[in-house]
């Protein structure tokens, strides 16, 4: 088995669904992802060397460059340029529609969209904190259930894990309003990563995103959809019972499939247009796929932001 195939099993939703602890699941993802990229998350430094300066009284002796002193008998201290600290706010949709999932784990457990969102959020938080980025968390349904300001401390990751593991209330969605609230709450310019299925009013969503962009935040919209929602593979006559009190429908899915996919496509196109209009990255993820794809996308986005900064 190739090495790349080995690490893939740590990122496969069907394998991750077996791991009930979000912390363990996150570490598994990180290990798998980093092994795949052949880089250790513990290597490298968060600061970079800038220049030497003659020692002056009061300087921290820990910064004296003893090698230079050995060659020149003069005391120099190393000056470091501190890496620009990025502030990331993970916004996780915890509405009832996120409780839908058709992907089954190897032990039969269900892998929901919310599982995908929380695992992805926890992994991103871990990797961000490891890079000294400040990480904040917002969990919402029709209200902003929880919000934690960005912080780069290691305790912050523990907080994120704990909150994400809490069972949501499974209420209806109110994404636009929540984003407007968040825009006012997040003070410093941040990278806002929105993890949701966006099964909501596009107009409200547009208002919320505009509010975030108005505050100069960079925004990534990650639409998480279950494989069944993407393919609509039903055959026999089915009674669809809507989550979030959306009613029910008895129909012949084979006849409706084309129409459903068309409506879904139109909705996704509308979201893309909204995001493109506000210079927001929009990506749709299949919760049945491996997690390395969104992780790579987010890391690339982070690098791009740092470059701009």
């Amino acid at each position, binding site marked *: 088995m190739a090495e790349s195939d080995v690490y893939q099993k740590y990122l496969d939703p069907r394998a991750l669904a077996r791991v009930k602890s979000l912390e363990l699941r996150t570490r598994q993802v990180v290990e798998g992802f980093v092994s795949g990229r052949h880089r250790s998350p513990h290597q490298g430094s968060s600061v970079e060397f800038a220049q030497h300066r003659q020692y002056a009284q009061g300087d921290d002796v820990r910064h004296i460059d003893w090698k230079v002193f050995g060659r020149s008998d003069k005391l120099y201290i190393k000056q470091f340029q501190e890496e620009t600290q990025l502030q990331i706010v993970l916004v996780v949709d915890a509405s*009832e*529609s*996120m*409780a*839908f999932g058709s992907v089954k784990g190897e032990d039969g457990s269900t892998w929901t*969209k919310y599982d995908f969102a929380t695992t992805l959020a926890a992994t991103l938080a871990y990797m961000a904190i490891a890079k000294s980025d400040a990480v904040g968390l917002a969990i919402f349904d029709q209200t902003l259930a929880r919000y934690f300001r960005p912080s780069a401390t290691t305790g912050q990751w523990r907080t994120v894990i704990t909150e994400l593991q809490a069972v949501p209330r499974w209420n209806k969605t109110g994404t636009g309003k929540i984003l407007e609230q968040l825009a006012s709450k997040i003070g410093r310019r941040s990278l806002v990563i929105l993890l949701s*299925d966006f*099964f909501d009013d596009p107009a409200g969503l547009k208002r919320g995103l505009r509010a975030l962009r108005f505050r100069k935040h960079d925004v990534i919209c990650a639409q998480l959809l*279950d494989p069944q*929602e993407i393919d609509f*593979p*039903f*055959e*026999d*006559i*089915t*009674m*669809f*019972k*809507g*989550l*979030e009190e*959306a*009613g029910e*429908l*008895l*129909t*012949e899915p*084979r*006849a*409706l*499939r*084309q*129409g*459903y996919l*068309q*409506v*879904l496509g139109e*909705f996704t196109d509308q979201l893309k247009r909204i995001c493109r209009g506000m210079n927001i990255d929009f990506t749709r993820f299949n919760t049945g796929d491996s997690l390395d794809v969104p992780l790579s996308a987010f890391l690339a986005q982070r690098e791009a932001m740092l470059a701009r900064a």
Partner: protein
Amino acid sequence: MIQTPFSTSWTWLNGDLPPPLFGFVLHPGLAFAGLALVSIPIIIHLLNRRRFRTVQWAAMDFLLQAMRRNRRRMRFESLLLLITRCAVIGLLGLALARPLGCGDTALARVAGRVAGLHVIILDNSASMAYRYERDGAATHLEHARILASAVITRLGETGDQMGALVTAASPARAVIASPTYELSSVLTAIDATPQTARSTDLAGALERAVEIAADAEGLPRTLHVITDGTTSALADTQRLAEAARRAAESYRIFWHNLSAPGQSNQAVLQVRPDDALVRRGFDTSFFAALQRFGGTPSETLLSWRLNGQSVGGSQPVTPTGEAQSVSASEPTLQDALMDGQAHVLEASITGGDGLPLDDVRRRVVEQVRDLPVLLVEGGRSSGSFGSGEILSMALQPGRDAGYVEVTRISDLELAGRPLGDYRAVVLAGVGNVAEPTAQALADYVQGGGTLMLWLGEAVTADNYNGVMLPRGLLPGPLVQRVNAPEESLIGYDFDPQNVHPYLAAFSGTERSGLDVGAIRLYWRIDLGDNAAADVVLRYLPAAQGQSSDPAVTTHRLGDGRVLLVTTAAGDPEWTLLPLRENYVAFVHELLNHAVGETSGGGLAWQTLEVGQELRVPPALAITGEPELVSPGGTGIELRREIREDGSGVWASPPLEEPGVYRLGVGDRGSPVAVNMPAGESDVRPLDEAGVRAALGDVEIVFMGDELPADSLAADEDRADFGWSLLAAVLLLAGLECFMAMRLGRHRR
């Protein structure tokens, strides 16, 4: 032609009742089943609506939105699919039901395949063995097989055809009685049809064909009669015309005549002695009846053989169009006959004609030295003069004179007398016959004996009508005694130029004694509609306007024969016939012919025609189980038949092979001669007008040995739309699949 919705006349649309479904499809049951099964897709649809799975669904808004947009389209598509699926099943049922349409519509020509029943009547009678006189020529039957095979082979190329086969050799037999689509089996049966030496039963063949037609109601039916159309085949005109009329109602008839106008044949039609009995001491000549049918008379050689040994040389003869009797030129032929033994006498002509089967004819003959006769007298006057005295003297003029050995007894001595010891029993004026005696007489005659009845003064109508008549010993009831007018005698209605075969000896004899009045009294007998009674001689009407009553009759009873003379044997109050010069000859001729025609006397049962069964008469003394061996040496199993009267008779299956069979009975053997039916020798074919007349002027298409090329696809054929509908079903099924995929109604 059966009216169908596809007919061009469309009369049923003009107020007439529509044609019944049974005339429209071959299998109405399947049509009804198809219609009933149309409901299956609807039922499945309704059942599916009640049986569904439930799914919790997040993207409900999209689903509802898609539903709102596509509701009408989905309903239309569902309805379209439902209709298509119902149509597939309905049409499938209809296709399997084989709807038929008239072939004269454009639709039928485009869509329909010709279907129908084709029955072949293959004449395999003896005349079909005719072969033209050239090297390598085939027989008519071989031609017929080729033609029949070609007809059947053609059917497989023209559509869904059923075939059946009837052979016309007597008795006609339906070889394939149920119409079959397995045409190869018909071909096999045609190839296996044997050449027989039997006569033709064309009427029977047509009747069999009509029976077969009943299995193909509604289908176009064609009858191919492949025959040589000879005169003999079309002789039974009344029955044939009726059979042809019924066949024409069921079939379109193609008449394939394989014979040619110039075909000819010469045959030995009969071999016979000139006496009913060949008797020692009486010169008997043997005759062969020869005739030529068609062609120019030419000389041939006639040869005689006795028990397979040539007797004398060949004599040149020239058979003509009229039957001619040629006597054997060898005078010592009778001398070669041994008393009491059966001999096979064979007359043959040299071949050179197209039908060799009838160039030889055989007959089993015997020479009688003693003919034991039991004469029973009903009344005796004083002395020895009784009611049979004169008759006894006529039969046996002296103690050692003649061949008849008379035992004269009184009717009182008849009971318990072993009748089997006598070739004939004569009752002369026996007035009162007891029931057991009558039964014994009936058993005797049934077993092959001859009973000669002379009436007279002592006879009473009550006794004879009550005892003899029910047992078949009288041809009809005795009605009354008829007296000749005063001072006159009743004469016989005798024409020397037109005599009964029993009186052939008096043919052309002017002073026979039968041509003058001799009868004073006789019993009138009412023959009614008894067709079996053969009147040998009649009286002249006693007065003008009166009927001509039977004087002498004969009829068959079982294997024996009864001969009735309605006057007395020698009572001068009744008859003066004994005074006439030919009285002796008269009674001998009657006796000889009666005895000669019985199985116990003349060995007639040992001379048969092909197709007849051999029935060994009970009178024949058999010490073991009889065995029959064919001319080819093959053993033929005999079966034991028990008659109603409890007596048994050994019988063979119909004998197929002409020639001499050997019947073994215990330690003795006896020959059985089997000949081709003489009627088959006339190979002259009837012309079209003759055939049409013989068949009752029904509609016939006359053909030779060519196939009815145009006729098979004639307009009258109704086309079978079954295959076209089946193709439509397949197309619809394909359309359904396409629509299901296109409309998202299929399983991925």
